[in-house]
């Protein structure tokens, strides 16, 4: 589904990704871990199409198409979803109105008919339950004055509404208490299927107790320096990142 080959990217003059290789197949959950500043969030942003980053090399193929050739909105319509680490507050735009616009633009792209008001509300009610989010929150301005947990639940709610093929969760666990973490993870797990895939970007192993990965990759200085199964995450939790850094430095 997603094939990343030797991906390199920088912001301004600073090189951040220095050759990422990653294969993600339908039905898989991949965790990207790594110390601060290793390039995890950059990878998530580059895949979603944030223009602040300049891709300087490599290729990304998504379902047979060149992902890097598309603007952020087109990637989203093709089925890529980024759950933001810091969801943006947008006063004056309600979540409901925003979601309705987004869903119908995605549907139009797929050649489907726009949802009428009734079907849209029905869909919304169903997905709201999944992340235990309240209607009143969705009528308010997008993320404005939301708590950290509410913002993250809103991200997963949007993901549930849009049903992406590839979900990228960027530090979704940051700023969440244990209850919110459970709710968000349950949401993500409920959306998993054999046809879609998830990339979980996280600093801590904690989230991976709830969203169990098939593969764990450790990012360091813009490269994946180690890959393994879910036990790698536990090892990192226990030993920290220093041994990875040492291994990586020794290999250079």
């Amino acid at each position, binding site marked *: 589904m997603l094939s990343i080959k030797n991906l390199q990217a920088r912001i301004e003059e600073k090189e951040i990704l220095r050759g990422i290789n990653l294969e993600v197949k339908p039905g898989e959950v991949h965790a990207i871990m790594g110390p601060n500043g290793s390039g995890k969030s950059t990878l998530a942003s580059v895949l979603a*199409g944030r*223009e602040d980053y300049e891709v300087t090399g490599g290729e990304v193929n998504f379902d047979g198409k060149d992902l890097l050739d598309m603007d*952020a909105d087109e990637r*989203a319509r093709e089925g890529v979803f980024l759950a933001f680490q810091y969801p943006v507050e*947008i006063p*004056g735009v309600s979540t409901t109105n925003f979601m309705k*616009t*987004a869903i119908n633009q995605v549907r139009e792209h797929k050649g489907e008919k726009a949802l009428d008001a009734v079907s849209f509300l029905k869909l919304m009610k169903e997905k709201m339950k999944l992340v235990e989010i309240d209607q009143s929150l969705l009528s308010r301005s997008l993320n404005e004055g939301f708590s950290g947990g509410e913002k993250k639940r809103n991200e997963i709610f949007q993901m549930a509404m849009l049903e992406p093929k590839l979900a990228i969760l960027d530090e979704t666990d940051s700023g969440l208490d244990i209850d919110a973490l459970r709710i968000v993870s349950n949401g993500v797990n409920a959306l998993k299927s054999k046809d879609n895939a998830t990339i979980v970007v996280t600093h801590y192993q904690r989230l991976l107790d709830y969203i169990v990965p098939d593969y764990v990759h450790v990012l360091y200085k813009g490269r994946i320096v180690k890959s393994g199964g879910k036990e790698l995450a536990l090892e990192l939790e226990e030993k920290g990142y220093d041994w990875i850094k040492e291994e990586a430095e020794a290999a250079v």
Partner: protein
Amino acid sequence: MKKFAGQSIIDKLSERFEASKQELTSNSTIADVRQKALNHLVENGLPHAKAEEYKFTNLTKALEKNISFEMNTERVSVSKEDVEKLRIEGLDAYYLTFINGEFNSEFSDEVTESGISFSPLSAAIQENNQLAGKLFDKLSKSTEDAFVAMNSLLANEGTVLEISANSEVSKPVFVQYINTKSSDIHAKNLIEVGANAKVTVIEKVDTLGAEPGFSNIVNEISVATGANAKFYKIENDTDTSYHISNIHVSQDKDSTFTSNTVALNGAMVRNNLDIKLEAEGCEAYMNGLYLLNGKTHVDNHTIVDHMMPNAYSNELYKGIMDDKSRGVFNGKIFVRKDAQKTNAFQSNKNILLTDDATVNTKPQLEIWADDVKCSHGCTTGQLDKDALFYLMARGIKKDRAMAMLLHAFASDVIENLELEPIQAYVEAIITSRLEK
């Protein structure tokens, strides 16, 4: 003879005044005012390029270049359809329509409701209507602004509205000025809102055809004790139209006045809004939205003058400048020595969509009282890139995402417009501009 800015214009206006002197000076009180206005113009000219109040908006030069100021007696026929197209869809109002500065009873509604009386200014002057004597060049003064002087010299038509005490006018009064020729119109509206009365007035000026036109409209609005008056100005004229508006308001005790100014199109627009809170307990609200593209230039100059204690004013102006357009905002707040316990707030926010768009914004507070709450703030920036990315990351196309953000930016001013057909009118324009 010393040469002034706008000399050629003033020469032509003097000639025109002489030619129509009989008609313009039939009422001795008004004749006097007109003569003083002429003297002022002849002595001082029009604002020159460096005049402090007009330094960003050289209207004098623009008028010299584009408007002939010749007397125009040609009659152009305007259809009912033309007139209706320029109104606001779905807005139930008393429509009062003036074509080339003359009242047109055929296209206008009869105002039959008790508590409100309407008279065209020409008739009011002829009949020596007390309001004409009381307000004409009284709140806005020839001596304070050359364009008011120009207006007082030539304006022989306009709307005289008297709302009697305790009357609530059932629907808005919509004053519509239509200019059809390459010429200039000068109109004056005199509005007296009686004690505890309520009224909403809307003004819209339009030019038919592509020829340049100039409209110079003055409103003198007196709001009595406990009254509540709302004034809307919708500016969506042609690319070659020049407009100056002077709205001068005096408020008596516990009265409320709301000004809503929406500027959408024109070549050059200058709005002077001057509100005097002359007694205790007044409230004044000033809402402004300017949504500009092409080469449109819109300048909003506002003054709110707190003269007595316990009054409140709140000003919110927002602008979105696209292409090579230019916005100007100057907001003055005066709090006089006697105006203790004043609450005065002002906010001006701007978004520039291109590198070629400009805004000049200047808040000006002058406070002589010591027990007051005043705040002001102005911001100018571009569309929030993070917000745009967030919307696009959900599959929303860039144009649509921009439109959503601009709607959101303007939403608080639009909500303040209250009249739903006007809100819809403005929303539709934002949408059509951005989703072209």
